[in-house]
Every structure is written in structure tokens, then in C-alpha cells.
């Protein structure tokens, strides 16, 4: 029995490719290059290179999935799942997490310098899709010399990337674990994203995206993040976390933050603008909305799927409700895929994929064990 633990101190690394004239062709028809991807790795790639797991992050995530950066107190965003003896056991597996293109955490995005102008891209950055994100990651996986990934896993947008990997490169993925995700955004999900984008774009500080060096549209981005946070929780988790508790003894009878929930949202909004680029928020939410593997946009309809699947949903997740996970399962059934599906009972809402460690660990560790065994 391994002692569970942290991967310890880690460092983000960078991989640059697609130097002109070999730019990456995007789904929109435009090209992008050079491209830098920020990534981290945990564990060791074995000699056969068959123990690699690609972890995909969600909308506001980054390459720092586990362990600690020098001088920082908080671990990576999925630390409870990645480490020796954890679900993604770094004693057995080589775990890679890369920041998406369009992001602002070290990968090429709208805040990166456009080599043609010497200034940040801003809105000159091309619109990117989930499929473009995956195509970029493929270069990183090629760089490692990994022919076939043992697993691609992620929650929310990370789950979309996992699904896209199988759609784009089925022969390169032994198993996939899409969590709290969908084959496509529903009008409700697009609507929430659009409200977030409008909040950013309505802020005069946005300046048509050309705000670099002048300070970003903090008010708008904070509102977008506050809306996001509401959709990540559930009615019940908000009741448990805040109820109607007040910050002071009584109502202020002014427009102050009377309720704890108000204070929490403002805090979340304010801390988000310090770490995230407003234009990246626009680009990435657009990529989420464009994603659709449900039908005619799917390149290989009806083809059998060899990749083994574990699909996970959460009962109280109303942003990505379980019927969407069941749609994924339906597609897998039609294609005779070897798949498991579990709807975990949780009250955390969409955030559950970051918080329900025990249940996910149970499912994932056994699933991976089998996939790894079959792959040898």
C-alpha cells in the first residue's frame, strides 16, 4: 500500500512550436504560430512510453494541476487527485497537464505578443476551438515521443478536450475520462457564457480588447466570474455554505455587502481579475460554445470506438446536467464502445469534479489499472 502524498515542488515548463512558415492551421481557416504551451509533468514516463496520462483543465485552469510552486501556499487545482498513491498515481503513471492555447497562463493567447507587430495580439488573435486546443497539445505529446496516451481526462472544458482527443486522434488514446461535461453546449450554457462576455465587453476599460498596458476591464470580468461561480455551485451547497448569514449583526439599509454570499462572490470576482486575462475569458468561452461533437460536425460518425471510456456526472450539477453525460453514453453505445458511466451523488454542483475526491478516486484508480493492464 502506497502512502498517499503530494508530488512536492513543481515547475511550469514551456514548449514552443509552429514557427512560421509551419504555423498551426486552425479550424477557422486562420493560422497561428509560433505557439508556446505551458505544461507541467509529474511522475516518470516509462521506457515503453505507455503510462502517460494527459490531464485537461477547465475554463480558468492552468498547467499547474498538482504540487507546489516555489513560495506558494496553495497546491495545483487537482492536487487531491494527482500524486503518489492518489487516483492518478505518479508512482505508476506519467501525468502531463498543459495550459490551452487562447489562455493566459503561459500558453499563447490574446495577451501574448504578436511577432508581426511586437504588441499583444488582443483581438487580432484568431478565434480558437476545442479542436485547435487539442491539435496544439498533440504537438506536445509528439514532442514527448508518446505514441499512445494511456488516458486523457478532464472536467468541464477539460472533459470536452478529452472527447475531442478521441474524435480527432482515436488511435492515440487508449482510454478517456470525461467528467461533468457535454458533447455540446445547450442554449442555457451558451446564454451564461454570453452574459459573461457582455459584462466584459460592456466595461469601458475593455477598449475593444486593446487594453494591454492600460489595465484590464476588471469590473466586467469580475461580474462574469461572479455569474460563473453561481453556476458552479448548487442551491443546496450555497445554502450549506452561506445560508442567509450576514456579515454584520444587522442589515445595513445601504447597498453594502450585507450577506456572506455577496461578500464571497465579490471576493471571488476581485481575486479572479488579478490572475486572468479578460480577452482570454472571451476567447475560451467562445471555444466552449462552438464545441459540438453531437452530430454533423463530428468527423467520423458511426465509426466504432476502440477507446475505453469512463464517463462521470454529478447529481447536483445543473450547469452540465447528467442528461448531457447520458448523451455522451448514448453516442458510445451506438459505436459499441467499452464504457462505464456513473452519476455520483453530490451536493456541490458543477464544482463537484474538483471536490468529490473519494468517489472519483475509487472509480478512476480501478478504471486506469485495467486500462493500463490491457495496454501492456
Amino acid at each position, binding site marked *: 500500500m502506497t502512502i498517499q502524498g503530494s508530488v512536492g515542488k513543481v515547475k511550469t515548463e514551456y514548449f514552443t512550436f509552429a514557427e512560421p512558415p509551419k504555423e498551426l492551421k486552425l479550424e477557422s481557416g486562420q493560422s497561428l504560430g509560433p505557439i508556446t504551451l505551458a505544461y507541467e509533468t509529474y511522475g516518470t514516463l516509462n521506457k515503453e512510453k505507455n503510462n502517460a496520462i494527459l490531464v485537461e483543465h477547465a475554463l480558468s485552469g492552468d498547467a499547474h494541476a498538482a504540487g507546489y510552486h516555489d513560495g506558494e501556499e496553495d497546491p495545483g487545482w487537482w492536487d487531491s487527485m494527482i500524486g503518489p498513491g492518489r487516483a492518478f498515481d505518479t508512482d505508476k503513471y506519467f501525468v502531463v497537464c498543459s495550459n490551452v492555447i487562447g489562455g493566459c497562463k503561459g500558453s499563447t493567447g490574446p495577451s501574448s505578443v504578436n511577432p508581426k507587430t511586437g504588441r499583444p495580439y488582443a483581438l487580432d488573435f484568431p478565434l480558437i476551438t476545442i479542436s485547435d486546443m487539442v491539435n496544439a497539445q498533440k504537438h506536445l505529446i509528439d514532442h514527448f515521443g508518446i505514441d499512445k496516451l494511456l488516458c486523457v481526462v478532464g472536467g468541464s472544458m477539460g472533459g470536452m478536450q478529452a472527447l475531442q482527443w478521441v474524435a480527432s486522434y482515436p488511435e492515440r488514446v487508449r482510454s478517456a475520462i470525461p467528467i461533468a461535461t457535454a458533447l455540446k453546449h445547450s442554449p442555457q450554457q451558451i446564454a451564461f457564457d454570453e452574459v459573461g462576455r457582455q459584462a466584459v465587453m460592456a466595461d469601458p476599460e475593455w477598449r475593444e480588447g486593446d487594453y494591454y498596458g492600460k489595465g484590464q476591464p476588471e469590473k466586467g470580468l469580475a461580474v462574469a466570474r461572479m455569474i460563473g461561480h453561481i453556476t458552479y455551485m448548487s442551491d443546496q451547497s450555497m445554502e450549506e455554505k452561506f445560508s442567509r448569514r450576514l456579515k454584520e449583526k444587522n442589515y445595513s439599509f445601504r447597498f453594502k455587502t450585507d450577506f456572506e454570499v455577496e461578500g464571497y462572490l465579490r471576493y471571488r470576482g476581485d481575486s479572479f481579475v488579478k490572475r486572468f486575462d479578460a480577452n482570454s475569458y472571451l476567447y475560451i468561452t467562445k471555444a466552449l460554445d462552438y464545441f459540438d461533437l453531437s452530430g454533423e460536425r463530428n468527423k467520423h460518425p458511426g465509426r466504432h470506438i476502440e477507446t475505453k471510456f469512463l464517463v462521470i456526472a454529478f447529481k447536483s450539477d445543473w450547469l452540465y446536467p447528467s442528461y448531457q453525460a447520458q448523451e455522451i453514453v448514448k453516442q458510445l453505445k*451506438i459505436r459499441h464502445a*467499452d*464504457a*462505464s*458511466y*456513473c452519476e455520483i451523488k453530490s451536493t456541490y454542483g458543477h464544482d463537484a469534479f474538483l471536490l468529490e475526491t473519494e468517489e472519483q478516486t*475509487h472509480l478512476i484508480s*480501478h478504471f486506469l*489499472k485495467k486500462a493500463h493492464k490491457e495496454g501492456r
Partner: protein
Amino acid sequence: MTTGSNRLDHEVIYGIVEPGSRVLDLGCGEGDLLHLLTKGKGVKAQGVELSEAAIYKCVEKGLSVFHGDIDSGLKDYPDGSFDYVILNQSMQEVKKVDFVIDEALRVGSRVIVGFPNFAYWRARIRLFFKGKTPVTYSLPYRWYNTPNLHFLSISDFKEFCADKGITIESEHFLGKKGTSWFLPNLFALNAVFVIKAGNKVKGG
């Protein structure tokens, strides 16, 4: 037969299933039967189960399983996706039995149905002399806590198959300790039928 299982019905079903076939177990519980079939007969197994706790047990065993109810678990499969669809001790718990059987016969070449016999002699005695709902070895629940929505006998099931034009390929009757063939509707605790779609036009 030495499967190591202490479940007589599992032994019987194990004997029926051909090696290497594709099997869908509806209401697979903790996956004991599928595990047996995977290990011993190398089948390609898929389970459907409603209980979350049981799903974890299945995944532990390395089985592929869908979390959901039987009634809605079948409709997405293309015709003939499986060699066997198993409905063991679960048919009596589904809401629309005829719909589920039709669907099972559509997605599977053969359907294996196992159920407790309501016309078992002890059940008859309890109902006839005591005027009470039967509680037997194969029907252990009381009226207020039973998961069973339907109660049927071996004769009922045969009549159902005849009415629906379903072909019964083989039948197996189980007592407490082994298979029993003498007046099964009276003496069998459990029955296992292997059925397949008849030649009749569907819905005719």
C-alpha cells in the same frame, strides 16, 4: 460445473453462455455474474445497474457498467448489439416488462430471463391456508418492502411467450440445491429461460 459461485442461478447461466460472446446484464448488481463470465468464458461484458454503490463494486472488478435504470438503458443500442441480454432476478422489478423484453430481444440474439416462481408450492400454501402474501426462499421480501413490481409463475411466463410469439429455446428450473424438473410450476423456486424473437412479424 465448478464456477466457484454459490449462486445456483449463476451456475446455470454460466452453463448457457457461449465463450467469447457479447453479454449485456440488465440489473447486474455488484457484477458477480458478469465477473464470473468474463473470467471463465472471456465474454465482452456490459452491465446496467441503478445503485451507485453497486457501480463502484463493478468498476472494482474491472467491469464496464452504466449507471441507470433498465427501462431506459436499452433504447440507444443498435439491433443485435449483443449475443445475450441477461435479465436475471431483475425483470420483476422493471416497470414495463413487455417493452423491456421486446427491446432486449431487439438488441440481443438471445435473452436469458431468470425469475422467482410465484407458484412454488410453499407460496401456494401460504396464500391458500394462511391468506398471506407468499414469503419464500426465492421471494424473501414482505409486501411492504419488496422491490418486485410483478409477480409471476413459470406458467405465466410461458403463456406470455406464447402470446407474444417469442420462442423459448431452453428452460431451466431451480430448487434449493439443484435443478428440478418434476412439476416445475409447483416445485421450482426459480426459473431461467433462454428466449429469442419468434418468426412472427413484430407487433403482429
